[in-house]
């Protein structure tokens, strides 16, 4: 089927559309000339959304509701009104997943998640999904009629401006949510970070369970600071409470593609590898020479992070 009408879930942080949003808009406009961005709020980001390819914006004021149920219900009302998309693209993150889940039930349509590419062959829309830590690529084709619902991992596409004009904004009201609308946000907490953002940094230094204890993470932070990079973490030490979730690299965390990724005391579980395998250069330090991380490392040091990291830090400071 032809993709005549594509919708993209857009998100903003600090007043600007997120990089994942711009990536999806760039891909969407290569598939269709009719791209609608839908976003929580008043649609104040319409200029940039238009620049990257959106021809229309649906703005949904959600108040204190969680985006999942509120935005899905608003979109359902638009679809019931006769504007039916062929494809709805979501970023693979918390809010994207929630909205697509709610919508999939409202529309009785399947969802395909964790994708890194999409193609329209004319007789089918196919997405590509890496599994087993990215060693195997599965192509899955939607069957039946749309709307097709698909979520894409960050950095699957390069964001490029199309120089488009600001998109026209249409406000969409959230219908009465009944019992499903009872979840309300009563306070928002932002964890402070300094230095470059983890998913935008040129260098990432990440620590894992091999650090042994929470206090050893200071070495990772110090090396990251010295290299003007960002500190990251494996899921194991986030789960253990050593560092906040915002540091996590991997399947359930950030996808990073820095010039240099230094993995300190990280064994390289599948969950972690999918988040960092796209790094240009990988350096790994781990005690276990059988650790899977050495299979993807350009330089692997079989050694104790407690010895090697302080030596690197001292050498950099001495320069």
């Amino acid at each position, binding site marked *: 089927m032809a993709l005549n009408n594509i919708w993209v879930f857009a998100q903003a942080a600090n007043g600007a559309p997120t990089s994942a949003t711009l990536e999806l808009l760039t891909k969407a406009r290569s598939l269709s000339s009719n791209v609608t961005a839908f976003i929580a709020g008043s649609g104040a980001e319409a200029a940039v959304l238009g620049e990257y390819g959106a021809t229309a914006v649906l703005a949904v004021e959600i108040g204190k509701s969680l985006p999942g149920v509120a935005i899905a219900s608003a979109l359902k009302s638009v679809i019931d009104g006769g504007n039916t998309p062929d494809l709805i693209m979501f970023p693979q993150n918390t809010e994207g997943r929630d909205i697509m889940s709610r919508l999939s039930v409202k529309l009785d349509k*399947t969802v395909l*998640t964790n994708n890194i590419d999409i193609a329209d062959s004319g007789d089918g829309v196919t997405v590509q999904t890496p599994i087993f830590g990215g060693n195997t690529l599965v192509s899955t084709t939607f069957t039946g009629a749309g709307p097709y619902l698909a979520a894409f991992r960050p950095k699957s596409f390069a964001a490029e401006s199309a120089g488009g004009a600001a998109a026209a904004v249409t406000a969409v009201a959230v219908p009465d949510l009944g019992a499903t609308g009872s979840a309300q946000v009563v306070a*928002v907490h932002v964890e402070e970070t300094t230095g470059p953002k983890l998913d935008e940094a040129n260098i990432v230094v990440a620590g894992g369970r091999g650090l042994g204890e929470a206090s050893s993470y200071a070495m990772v932070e110090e090396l990251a600071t010295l290299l003007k990079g960002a500190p990251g973490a494996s899921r194991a030490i986030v789960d253990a409470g050593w560092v906040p979730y915002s540091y996590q690299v991997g399947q359930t965390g950030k996808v990073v593609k820095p010039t*240099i990724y230094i993995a300190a005391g990280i064994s390289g579980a599948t969950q972690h590898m999918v988040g960092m395998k796209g790094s240009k250069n990988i350096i790994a330090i781990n005690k276990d020479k059988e650790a899977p991380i050495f299979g993807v490392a350009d330089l692997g040091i079989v050694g104790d992070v407690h010895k*090697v990291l302080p030596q690197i830090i001292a050498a950099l400071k001495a320069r």
Partner: protein
Amino acid sequence: MSLMNVIVCVKQIPDPAAPGALDGATNTLKRDGKLILDDSDAYGVEMALQLVDKAGGGEVALISMAPNGETAGLRTALAMGAAKGVLISDPALQGSDALTTAKILAAAVQRLGGADLIIGATESSDGYTGTVPEQMAELLGLPSVTFAKKVSVEGGALKVDRQTEAGYDEVTCALPALISVTAGVVEPRYPSFKGIMAAKSKPVEEVTAADLNVTPVGWAGAGQKISNVTQAEARQAGEVIEDDGETFGKIVGFLENLKVI
């Protein structure tokens, strides 16, 4: 609230330590070997047990969809302290997509008469689609809070710290509700010997898709088909050297070559 009944969705998965494989005929994940309780679900089971404990009464029930009548993972959760389970096992379910899975599990919740709270994981460790709990909430007409990293019940309502990209949100929600919990939300207990023995006689009802009146299921109900499977270009491993006390110089040299220092 004096009584609190909680249903936990648990997935029984192939041992994640073993390399995953696809069934050559169907291109679905191989799940024919021994299955274990998904680690991600142990947190939900523990959370449920603690909430029931704090409420001063009630019970934790489990629901699971698995092939071949598999109950090993369910028994682990029963050994932790859950009271009973419903297992949906049916060859017709092979090839089911996430939406069909959610329909099956939602029907199982209704078979159990509902609950004050339904708990799932944010995603499974094998398929990691990550949509089933929220789809269940929509099917059951319930409010939901995903990515819960701290949960309590106060005055009959949920209080949740919900993980976000930037930090976390404090969210309140009326019951009944559904939540998905992150790993690390609580520390799962190890089943005691007594618990393991007791689990053997706890009731697990086995039902089919037809028993739950869910149709179509399996490949017929999935709005998708796998069209191709290829091996990704493998990243070449580079130099791996044993640390002799001087290898840090190799790393510094590597950084110099890339002109980042």
